[in-house]
């Protein structure tokens, strides 16, 4: 009896494990599951194509998805890579993992947010913002630009996330590209001298601001909007919005098709769907992402690219600089 039960269990494991439909698409996603999953489910119910996602986690610093893509290079399992910023896509492109694909929907996206070789296409963007605690500091006392973070009266009262990971690295790399090495390094040194608090993640910056541990911190618009939903004490501003300033960093989501992936056709369908006004409108509603396609419906209060001064970034060059400055950033962090 026991033996039969055990054999039945083993058979069940083998047969239940292998189930998978052919009409499917595999997507690896670094965008927060809470926002990306509903969109993928909508695609599934609309097209009948089963979406099999792999999400990442903040705890492991998003090592999962990127390292999987790199390790699976010889036998790809993923069809579409949906990243929260284009840097990872650019790294994958440089390692020959992505394929060129010029989606029809891409035409609606401004050229500035696309790879010149079609290896990635941007959509719905986030921006780097300054989140602050209204109870602790008035809006007119806040820094107006990144340079103001080095002012003495903010010493030890603000935070940035670990600059080796995520969008913080991207922001710093953009500054290195815009300002040049010397100025950017000097600014980073002054930040350190001003006792900047290094939080474990953007979410941690958000939490510390909400609890009032810090006056303000740098984070992304989606984190800031989530914080505002959770606490009435929190608000955010865009930095460097004066006419002569550098502007704020805007980071689009980025999609890539994986080379030799098993379900390329379905992957392309998913890309077309994600690069639509409909998806951009959903992301604007759920996490305040700024649509890149003109004329997309946006709820009230959601920032628009037309109303902010964006930093002029060459994403390819920034990604290259990012990889170059990382050893220096690591040293800066360890000092």
């Amino acid at each position, binding site marked *: 009896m026991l033996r039969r039960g055990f054999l039945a269990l083993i058979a069940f494991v083998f047969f239940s494990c292998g189930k998978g439909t052919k009409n499917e698409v595999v997507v690896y996603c670094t965008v927060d599951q809470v926002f990306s999953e509903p969109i993928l489910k909508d695609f599934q119910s609309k097209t009948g194509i089963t979406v099999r996602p792999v999400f990442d986690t903040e*705890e492991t610093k998003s090592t999962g998805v990127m390292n999987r893509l790199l390790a699976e290079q010889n036998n790809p399992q993923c069809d579409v890579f949906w990243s929260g910023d284009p840097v990872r896509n650019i790294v994958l492109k440089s390692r020959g993992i992505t394929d060129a694909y010029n989606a029809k929907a891409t035409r609606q996206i401004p050229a500035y947010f696309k790879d010149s070789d079609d290896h990635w296409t941007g959509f719905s963007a986030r921006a780097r913002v300054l989140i602050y605690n209204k109870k602790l500091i008035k809006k007119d006392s806040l820094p107006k630009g990144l340079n103001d973070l080095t002012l003495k009266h903010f010493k030890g009262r603000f935070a940035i996330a670990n600059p080796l990971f995520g969008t913080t690295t991207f922001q710093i790399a953009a500054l290195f590209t815009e300002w040049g090495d010397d100025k950017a390094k000097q600014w980073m040194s002054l930040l350190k001298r001003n006792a900047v608090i290094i939080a474990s993640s953007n979410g941690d910056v958000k939490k510390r601001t909400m609890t009032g541990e810090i006056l303000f911190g740098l984070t992304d618009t989606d984190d800031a909007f989530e914080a505002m939903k959770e606490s009435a004490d929190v608000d955010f501003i865009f930095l460097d919005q004066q006419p002569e300033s550098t502007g704020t960093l805007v980071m689009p989501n980025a999609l890539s098709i994986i080379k030799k992936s098993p379900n390329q056709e379905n992957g392309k369908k998913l890309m077309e769907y994600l690069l639509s006004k409909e998806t951009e409108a959903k992301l604007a509603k759920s996490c305040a992402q700024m649509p890149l396609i003109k004329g997309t419906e946006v709820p009230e209060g959601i920032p628009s690219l037309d109303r902010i001064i964006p930093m002029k970034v060459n994403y390819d060059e920034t990604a290259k600089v990012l990889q170059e400055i990382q050893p220096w950033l690591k040293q800066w962090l360890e000092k």
Partner: protein
Amino acid sequence: MVRKITLIVHYIISALLAFILGAPLVLLLFNWVINRKEPSFLPDSGLLFLIGSSLLLSTTVAVIATIVGTSCGFLFYKIKSNGFPTYHNILVIPLLISPYIFAVAWRDALYLLFGQYASIYSIWGVIIVHVIIFFPIVMLITGSALSSIHSTLEEAGVVITSFKKTVLRIILPLIKHSITLSFLLVLIFSLTDFSVPAFFGVRTFTTEIFTQFAAFYNYQQAIEQSIILLLVSCSLILLQFRYLAKSPVFAIGQKGSSSKCHELTKGKKWIHSSIAFLIIVTIIFPVFILIYQSLSGSHSYFIEALVSLKGAIGKSFFLAFCGALLITAVAMFTSYAELRSDIRLPGAMLLFLFVTPSTVLGIAYIYFYNTSATAFVYASPIVIILGYAARFSFIAHKIIGNGLKQIPLSMEESGELVGINTYKRYTKLLIPLLTPSLVTTFLLSFILCLNELGTTIMVYPPGTELMPLKVYTISANAPVALTSTMTLVNLIVILLAILIFYYFGKRIKTRFHYD
């Protein structure tokens, strides 16, 4: 003749195990060797300093956890007093909560109490959280060893000398192997943990390895550093190998002997207050903060958390169940082969896999199983189950090995002499005698599998939903109330599962008339 056949079978199964579980890692190391550009393997002074400071941190954790855990083990297993069994069960709870969730909860608890938590962002924060998480392991290991000390040894001691001297001169020396083993296990767990030091912003050797993976995508460097970590962990264990090889991990059951329990006469108030303090610090604080946060949302997230976890609960249970079964079977074989046929390679391989960082293990499994020939493994949850087995079989190997040591070889030999075949000797003699060890191994493995994240996140098939994955992937930007509620639901579900298994375990024990 029969023995020769048995030996051959053991060698074949050992080779199969080595191929399925160990070969991926060997292949990864081989790839690393042939792709290496740097001829030198020696770490620079900065890295050596980091290894030293990480070892110091983990040693501090291990020392404190060993002292606290052994004291608790002694109290709960050797002293009779009202409430002690309940205290024991409560203090096991930290094992069921992931270190990362624990760190977050503890920080938030501090903020709620003192209005600031800057002080926890330090080495001390890591030490405190690690001690809280890992001391129950010491408590279980040393406690079980204490319960297997034959009463006559203690009684003889008490007759000729004081109780204090009996403890110091008889009891502690008798369980020194278990203490050493617990110390080493905690040291390795602490040394290889990434989540807590990363959260508290403390740089350790393991966070350095993860930085190579996550920030630089530098496999070569990451694997090189992992090898150093592996060598450090292995050499620590090898130093004490004779303890590991001979010491009991869990002495389950007394097999005819009985252990002496003492009445608590002096210092009742003081001891109970100390335990109460420990429970407040280790359980009440974090669980309270999780409940508080789960209720702090704009609405109740309980239904949302349940709906979100609905699909994951069944699958997590099923995979953890299969994982625990496989681990128990593997450990049963490896310990038997080691003790009865003197085949030590599988045990050594399990030790090697146990100390390998989870990300490295995940990458090794991707390289090895992500081929067209082995797609049925990689594209299915079988790869998760193999990951579980690779990570936790060593602990199971030690538990069952100890159970096996308590069964005299003569019993099997007598069975063989009277003509009982091998299958019946196993099923009618060995397995019933090993039942308590097998049940404990299964339960512990089940808990470990249910909470495993490091390797699972690297290899889980697309579309698979598992409880720890769901809690972590959703925690990035979900409201704190939802994340806390999901963690609580996770905890409740695990506790319920343990209660169910405990009930069946007891029934099995009764069925085999073990007592």
